[in-house]
């Protein structure tokens, strides 16, 4: 096809767009936007007193974000309304450089639209369960590496439970699955897990890293803020399998949708999560810069911050373009709103049902703000005025480029080469331990190439075609033979595929800090299964948040079941992160975090052995070991072992634990004080005979060891 010069084409489009706009407005008028539609609370006093019964909820079906984007496209480009929003426009539109130079898209794989190649033919056809497996197997065959056999069923159910829910399976669940010999047992298990409201909790953890969700402002004073409704919105969105394009649009521009529902306002908390510097003169600048950078990390899978000061050194993002994105965000104002919102999948167990809570949201200013490029990234030095716009190294906008709504539609446009790839890769990373693009935080020119480029593209296209369904993607990935492989690694595979990039085995990796806590609480039976609500204050070492100059905060440990809520509900204090989380590599969420480190160090050993939170769990797990068996050592140990890792202990393992139990039982029978101290003090003494207390304490020591096992803290 002969190429028309890009500039000419752009002018043609512009002309058509203008013409079409006048028509479109008559067809579909976007409603007036502004803060007036929101229930604004008059003062912080009212805000804190907002815990009262809700007014009758105004039932308003949330806007269909896909339809809104479609209308935007129609308004701006004049393309006829299409029913399939995922229908891509002419691929030639990639050539959008005004000067007609070679488009960057052609130069870097990640900037060209993914195309779904047919899954390749492989030698071992019987092995493959899904197209995924054919891509993976082809690469392995090329390297003359073999796949691993399927993992045993106890491993599989624990793997699935941890990956999807962030919780270990109960021994009963393991038994039921092992006993289920129907051919669709695995599929039914996946579907059961996909329907659990805990799925949203697990999925939210890493999204909240990107969204830099925290309960404090950060910076020097690190004051508290109330934004947990946003956290709940994320959990609920995952539970309801909100399509990723809608998920994007609501978080970036929920307030700009026609007649936005409360939930859509709440979603804009994504942008509001910025840390807030106490310095009033620069804090708006810092906040907007943070938002541009966050959008870069989250949807582009790229680090934008370099372009704040100068054209990006490695990636084709100019400083001008950086401030064009900044200009889009510069029109927003910060608001506090009372929202009658409880995520529908959280209502059953939520402590807050029916109450009106306040949260921070974003709204659009009436008058557009003028944005200037900041010379050398300095808020004090205005350069040229810049208009809102999108980076030219990606597809030309079909939906306008003036505001956040246009940005969100552009990001989820079928032409966008990055959004689906970045999202799919992130989910792959969460299920396999390492992304197809290992640098899941860098899809730019300096990022690593994908290990399986055709597979990544195939999945990205499939994701879009499926209507951006997260659950369908999880289902597809977990159903694959690749996912089901055993974690056992041969010396040969370890040498030739040390990081498991070629997927020669099932991924094996330590769980996230929050999940580690959940495993301990769940195995011990202490865990509260309440969903959502204000952040909670579990025990932490006294002084952790008090002993900070200027940001001292009194951490009042919750005395009710909130002590034992799941990790993700812990009050996220940016300057003094919950200690056991910090030790297990959770980020402080001052800025967007696209990838957590996964380290192993001695401080972690001290957490699982000695942190009173983990030791309390051990004591309760010890109690369960006795209560839920006939109390014989072998039965108690086996029960504890299975509550932690699912499977039965082997004939080599059991004696090791048995001798620990015997030694401890002997010690604690002789030392009544130690036994009492271990299980929690004198009130126990009156209720049980000493023999029973010694057994319990010995079980607690065994449980303490079980909770520290590598296998317990890993997902295999």
């Amino acid at each position, binding site marked *: 096809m002969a190429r028309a010069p890009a500039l000419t084409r752009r002018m043609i489009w512009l002309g058509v767009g203008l013409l079409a706009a006048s028509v479109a407005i008559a067809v579909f008028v976007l409603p007036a936007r502004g803060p007036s539609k929101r229930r604004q609370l008059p003062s912080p006093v009212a805000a804190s007193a907002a815990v009262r019964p809700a007014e009758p909820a105004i039932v308003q079906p949330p806007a269909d974000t896909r339809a809104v984007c479609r209308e935007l496209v129609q308004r701006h480009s004049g393309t006829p309304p299409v029913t399939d929003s995922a229908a891509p426009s002419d691929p030639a539109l990639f050539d959008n450089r005004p000067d007609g130079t070679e488009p960057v898209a052609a130069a870097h794989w990640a900037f060209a639209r993914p195309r779904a190649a047919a899954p390749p033919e492989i030698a071992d056809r019987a092995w493959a369960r899904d197209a995924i497996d054919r891509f993976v197997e082809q690469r392995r065959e090329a390297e003359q590496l073999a796949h691993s056999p399927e993992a045993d069923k106890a491993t599989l159910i624990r793997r699935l439970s941890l990956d999807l829910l962030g919780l270990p399976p109960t021994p009963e669940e393991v038994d039921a699955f092992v006993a289920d010999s129907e051919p669709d047992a695995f599929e039914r298990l996946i579907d059961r897990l996909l329907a659990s409201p805990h799925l949203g909790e697990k999925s939210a953890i890493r999204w909240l890293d990107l969204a830099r969700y925290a309960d404090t402002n950060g910076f020097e004073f690190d004051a508290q803020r109330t934004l947990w409704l946003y956290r709940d919105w994320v959990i609920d969105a995952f539970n309801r399998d909100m399509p990723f394009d809608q998920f994007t649009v609501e978080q970036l521009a929920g307030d700009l949708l026609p007649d936005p529902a409360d939930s859509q306002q709440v979603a804009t908390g994504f942008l509001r999560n910025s840390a807030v510097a106490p310095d009033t*003169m*620069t804090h708006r600048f810092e906040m907007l810069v943070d938002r541009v950078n966050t959008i870069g990390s989250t949807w582009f899978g790229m*680090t934008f911050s*370099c372009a*704040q*000061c*100068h054209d990006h*050194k*490695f990636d084709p993002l100019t400083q001008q373009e950086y401030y064009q994105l900044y200009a889009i965000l510069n029109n927003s104002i910060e608001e506090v709103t009372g929202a009658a919102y409880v995520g529908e999948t959280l209502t059953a167990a939520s402590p807050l049902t029916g109450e009106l809570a306040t949260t921070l949201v974003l709204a659009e200013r009436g008058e557009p703000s003028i944005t200037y490029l900041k010379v*050398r*990234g*300095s*808020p004090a030095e205005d350069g040229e005025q810049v208009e809102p716009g999108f980076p030219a190294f990606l597809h030309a906008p079909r939906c306008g480029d003036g505001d956040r709504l246009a940005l969100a539609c552009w990001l989820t446009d079928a032409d966008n080469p990055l959004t689906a790839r970045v999202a799919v890769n992130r989910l792959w990373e969460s299920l396999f331990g390492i992304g197809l693009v290992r640098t899941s*935080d860098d899809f730019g020119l*300096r990022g690593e190439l994908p290990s399986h480029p055709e597979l990544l593209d195939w999945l990205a296209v499939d994701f879009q075609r499926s209507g951006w369904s997260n659950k369908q993607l999880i289902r597809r990935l977990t159903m694959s033979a690749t996912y089901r492989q055993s*974690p*056992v*690694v041969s010396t040969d595979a*370890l040498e030739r595929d040390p990081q498991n990039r070629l997927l020669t085995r099932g991924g*094996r990796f*330590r769980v996230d800090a929050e999940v580690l806590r959940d495993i301990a609480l769940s195995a011990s039976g202490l865990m509260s299964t309440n969903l959502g609500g204000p952040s909670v204050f579990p025990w932490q*070492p006294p002084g952790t948040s008090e*002993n*900070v*100059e*200027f940001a001292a905060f009194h951490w009042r440990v919750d005395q009710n079941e909130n002590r034992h809520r799941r990790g993700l509900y812990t009050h996220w204090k940016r300057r*003094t992160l919950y*200690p056991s989380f*910090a*030790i297990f*590599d959770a980020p*402080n969420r*001052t800025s967007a975090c696209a990838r957590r*480190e996964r*380290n*192993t*160090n*001695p*401080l972690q*050993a*001290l957490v699982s*052995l*000695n942190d009173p939170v983990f030791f309390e769990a051990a004591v309760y797990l010890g109690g369960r070991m006795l209560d839920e068996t006939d109390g014989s050592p072998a039965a108690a140990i086996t029960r504890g072992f299975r509550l932690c890792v699912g499977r039965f202990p082997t004939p080599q*393992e059991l004696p*090791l*634990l048995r001798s620990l139990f015997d*030694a401890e039982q002997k*010690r*604690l029978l002789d030392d009544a*004080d*130690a036994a009492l*101290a*271990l299980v929690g003090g004198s009130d126990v003494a009156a209720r049980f005979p000493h023999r029973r207390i010694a057994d319990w*304490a010995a079980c607690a*020591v065994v449980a303490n*060891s079980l909770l*520290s096992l*590598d*296998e317990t803290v890993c997902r*295999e």
Partner: protein
Amino acid sequence: MVDVSENMIDRFSRRAFLSRSSAGVGSLALASLLSQSSQASATSATPLPGVSHYPARAKHLIFLFMAGAPSQIDLFDYKPKLNEFDGRTADRELLGDVRFAQLRPRNPNAPSKLLGSPYKFRQHGESGALVSELLPHIAGVVDDLSFLKGMKFDEQVFDHPFAQLTLLTGAPLEGRPSLGAWLSYGLGSENANLPAFIVLMSNLLPRGGSGTSSSGFLPSVHQGVPFNCHGDPVLFLANPPGVTADARRRSVETINSLNALRRDLIGDPEISTRIAAFELACRMQTSAPELVDLTREPKHILELYGAEPGKQSFANNCLLARRLIEQGVRTVQLVDLDWDHHGDTPARDLMGALPRQCASVDRAVAALLSDLKQRGLLEETLVVWGAEFGRTPIDERRPGTIHLGRDHHPFAGTFWMAGAGIKPGQTLGATDELGFMAVERPTEVFDVQATILHLMGLDHERLTYRTQGRDFRLTDVYGSVIGELLA
């Protein structure tokens, strides 16, 4: 509170300018080689293979971080001319056309006045260095010190937290690895029973937060581990009630036997790392309480430092620092707060609070130096005294205050370095006659960082880590080794 300057915060500008020049690019090739090997050592504090760029002059670093910024004008930077002009209006005629928030009069009706030092200075030792009467003990070891009296700081980093982060991590934002973390990353630990980087606080975290000792994007094994002289020496170090040392040993043996079985079955080498981590944790449980137990020191040593076992104090931390260095710990960072003498409250008064603060560190610092020297440890230990700012030669005179104070100041400050690889008894750099501005051989925190790395055997331009799509280093694109200081 600190006002925002009229010419505003432009903390990114110099950074941006320099990074557009070719300054940071030359090292990329080597950097990528290094960062590959960095992945391999991501889980343990072992040195990077081949990363030592020079023969190391120093094996250990003790950084005396005087958070808040001590007044160099009242401690080390003697300015007779300033004393002569005491009380004169600090106008342009005297100071030139410099604009900075800290120089604007706090009280519009009372113009800023120069403030000479109310303290007497005297020459000490063979080097004849001038030290004020507030630090008589440090004056006694002054021949071991080399001063940097032309320190200046980024004027766009206008407040303490950001300046503290710049001093210790090279950037005014949280998230970068700190100096001690870089040293741990580059050089590893010399004692398998202890972390390579230990932080000792006189009381609280500094305003820069835990970011001042964080591992940033480096593996968390390199983070600064806070040790305490009282209570639990390390977070979660103590066994739970009813769990004896024997019981703990049995537990960890069982855990590691089970982990070893799992490793043999699964073949995952990460399990070996976890086994090693549990072993180190166990050894720390044994070694750390002994190590922090200052009652094991003889009485004359306790007296030398002014240490009182069981207390949390800077003096105790100095003694503990020596004990940690003896055990092979790479970096000990001592954090002492309360040097922010603005004169707005009695607790920040130049006349009352400053002498008290000096007294709380003077004896201990001198004791640390002489104790290290006497044990031959000063030959392999670099000791650095520094802060995030200096202070102004002007009476800050906040409205309504009856106290004397000086604002923190980016244009002049004093650091000193002593010990391994340092040519002692020197003074490098100088401020103008009024102590307002570093004018002779000015040095910056990046130069100090580069010099520390150099003395420890590392090239600050080649010690890099690749993350977020680029290579990072402690000194970013700045810094050069202060050659004149080296022995």
